[in-house]
């Protein structure tokens, strides 16, 4: 009895140490995340021009619906999201499955090569892609040499192709990164599971959909949500890929690469600053991210 009591007393003291360990982090989060979140919610009910601040209630949010730039930025980002994320995650899953096959050789080399793009800075690789995809640049040369196209594609001067370039660039940069998570997850699945399936006569494709995908569900969910949030926040790539290529002020040809984050930046620091309006845009993005995450949870979680 007294032994038990003693431990419980100690548990109590140890438990207090928990706060000591998380205190620094908590301080940082409160100051640099929680406070800004709360403040920008407050700010989103004002229209601000320099030092002038007028209360507008939901006015900013109503204005957003009619703001063609904002609507365009949403359309751009959702198009990229719907096309790029599934392609990338499927590719990553395939790479991981192949590199988890014990019969494949040179795994280390392939894994390193495929992961390498993930160590570059977003600005740096975007600049590289911008040069490679220029009108008389490398990509057009190669495609014409191989005979796939007859005339150079105006990659960064055409609204459609600019989006394609961005999707190619994003896929190049992030596939290997996601592959690492899948590889890590696959190593937790015992090889015997696959061997048993093999003996039962299940083909590789059946094994992929009946064993790999279901067992990796939590990690697939994790990568889907992080990729979705990452796409909603796109900033570095559109800013550096084709910004100002056509005219000084549009982000990509005809603003085809305008994203909400870039728009927020422009509203804050480029045009006459309206911080209240920028905050309202931010909140709409938060809301969209939350809704999408919720849907993904439902879709992936429910089948369990």
């Amino acid at each position: 009895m007294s032994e038990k009591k003693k431990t419980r007393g100690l548990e109590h003291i140890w438990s207090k140490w928990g706060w000591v360990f998380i205190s620094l982090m908590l301080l940082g989060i409160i100051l640099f995340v929680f406070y800004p979140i709360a403040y920008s919610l407050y700010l989103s009910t004002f229209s601000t021009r320099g030092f002038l601040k007028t209360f507008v209630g939901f006015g900013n949010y109503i204005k957003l619906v009619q703001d063609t730039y904002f609507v365009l930025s949403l359309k751009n980002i959702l198009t990229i999201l719907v096309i790029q994320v599934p392609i990338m995650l499927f590719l990553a899953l395939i790479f991981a499955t192949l590199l988890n096959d014990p019969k494949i050789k040179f795994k280390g080399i392939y894994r390193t090569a495929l992961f390498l793009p993930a160590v570059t800075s977003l600005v740096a690789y975007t600049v590289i892609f911008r040069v490679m995809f220029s009108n008389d640049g490398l990509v057009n040369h190669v495609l014409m040499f191989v005979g796939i196209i007859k005339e150079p594609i105006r990659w960064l001067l055409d609204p459609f192709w600019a989006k394609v370039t961005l999707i190619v660039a994003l896929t190049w940069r992030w596939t290997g990164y996601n592959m690492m998570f899948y590889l890590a997850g696959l190593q937790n699945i015992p090889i015997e599971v696959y061997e048993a399936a093999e003996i039962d006569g299940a083909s590789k494709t059946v094994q992929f959909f009946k064993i790999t995908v279901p067992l990796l569900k939590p990690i697939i969910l994790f990568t889907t949500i992080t990729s979705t949030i990452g796409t909603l926040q796109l900033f570095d790539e559109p800013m550096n890929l084709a910004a100002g290529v056509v005219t000084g002020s549009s982000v990509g040809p005809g603003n085809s690469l305008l994203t909400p984050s870039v728009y927020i930046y422009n509203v804050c620091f480029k045009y006459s600053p309206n911080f209240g309006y920028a905050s309202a845009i931010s909140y709409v993005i938060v809301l969209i991210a939350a809704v999408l995450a919720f849907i993904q949870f439902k879709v992936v979680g429910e089948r369990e």
Partner: protein
Amino acid sequence: MSRKLRYTFIYIFLTISAFISVFPFYWMIVGSTNKSVDVLKGKLSFGTEFVENFKNLWENYNLGKVLVNSAKISIFVVVFSIIVSSMAGYGFEIYSSKVRNKVYSAILLTMMIPFAALMVPLFRLMYFFNLIDSHWGVILPMIPSVFLVFFFRQNFKQYPKEIIMAARVDGANELRIFFSIVLPSMKSAYAAAAIYAFMTSWNAYLWPLVIIQSEQNKTIVLMISSIASGYTPDFGVVMMAVVIATLPMLVVFFALQKHFVQGVLGSVKQ
């Protein structure tokens, strides 16, 4: 399809993919040795402009200063970030309680908030602290990393609790247990976290773009962006800058690769 044929296809697929992944690295290195016109034309062989491009970058764009700025920011972020977030991950895992788990969930949820949403209040905050156009203004908000807290908590899940108990019986206090027993035994996790923190801080763009205003405080990423977005950029110089910016990442990655893979594995295991 025969077994052999299928594996041949797999190898071809993997090799092409690996080639596409690595090619831009080769190309930027080649680019750094060529003239701007040749870079734009997509010349694939090495040129003779290497020294010229480097000199240009060094003299006209103050490369030395810019690199020191980037290094300074990254070192401070890495050191503080992994201490603060590993302590928090440890705190949440080892001293788990109802209240703390709720706090943990609240912190995890903030990963959904786009940085752009925090930008304006953060900018005001930095103005209040008089940190606009200073490196500390860049460093401070980058220290608390929610992802790293999550990462460390996952890694501490596997840590044998008996060792902590034994240390307590021996009379060590909690901070000592963490710093001299637990921390040294988690090398892989720390190495992986250090790579992650280094990558995010060295490569950061939006926040430095907002905070840094003068030429002399610029980071290498800001420099690349501003050279490349000029009206007639010298792409040989741009490629040289990209190579120099990427080099430290590659060195760190290859030096710590083993730990990195182990660290990621640790964070995914349940």
